[in-house]
């Protein structure tokens, strides 16, 4: 259900696994995150360098526990029939797939909402850190205010 891996993943295979596992699902939502070449860390693209490499560090053990907790929280809020989360770590290049979230439910709204919830929490509650390299320059990506805001919208629900 949860994988933290350096290898790439196949959207088709993951989708078929969700279909099989979910039984009588009426809706499957899949989200795939892709490494961007133009990195707008502050939301401002002017003057930002192009990414050559994105390095993903994580905290083995805590990463898997955090993702499991996020999925459990989603399963309590919505009627989900299957959930799949994959996050890649190590060195990635622009256009590579970095993250996958798939949710299955009887009706579409639960699957849509749960997928968004899982992504919002994954971005700032699971111990992953991105380091962006462009030529000889490299820097750790700062946490974004918009990610904290994305999380805040679930506080009241």
């Amino acid at each position, binding site marked *: 259900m949860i994988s933290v891996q350096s290898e790439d993943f196949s959207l088709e295979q993951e989708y078929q696994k969700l279909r099989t596992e979910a039984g009588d699902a009426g809706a499957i939502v899949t989200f795939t995150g892709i490494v961007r070449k133009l990195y707008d860390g502050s939301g401002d693209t002017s003057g930002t360098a192009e990414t050559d490499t994105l390095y993903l560090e994580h*905290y083995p053990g805590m990463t898997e526990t955090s993702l499991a907790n996020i999925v459990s929280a989603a399963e309590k809020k919505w009627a989900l029939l299957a959930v799949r989360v994959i996050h890649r770590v190590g060195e990635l290049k622009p256009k590579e797939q970095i993250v996958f979230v798939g949710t299955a439910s009887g009706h579409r709204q639960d699957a849509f909402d749960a997928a968004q919830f899982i992504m919002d929490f*994954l971005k*700032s509650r699971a111990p*992953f*850190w991105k380091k962006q390299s462009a030529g000889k320059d490299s820097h750790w990506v700062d946490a974004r205010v918009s990610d904290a805001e994305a999380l805040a919208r679930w506080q009241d629900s």
Partner: protein
Amino acid sequence: MLTIHYFASVREAVKRSKEELELPENVANIGDLIEHLLLLHPHFEAIFQDDRKILIAVNQTVVDKSQALDPGDEIAFFPPMTGG
């Protein structure tokens, strides 16, 4: 024995990924531990002076500085997370 992990920008600033130390007598919580680490390693000051740059986990759960410590705890210091 406490095990302390450092990740990402914090790991680079403190120039180590892990260390182990006996829980000192005068260290009751995370705040005390940070004071102790600053005495052991003065170069930690640059990263530990700004609370916004550091998150703390004890036994893989995020906590604040008031968290009490037990011998054998696994502690981690890292910057705000940037997954996805």
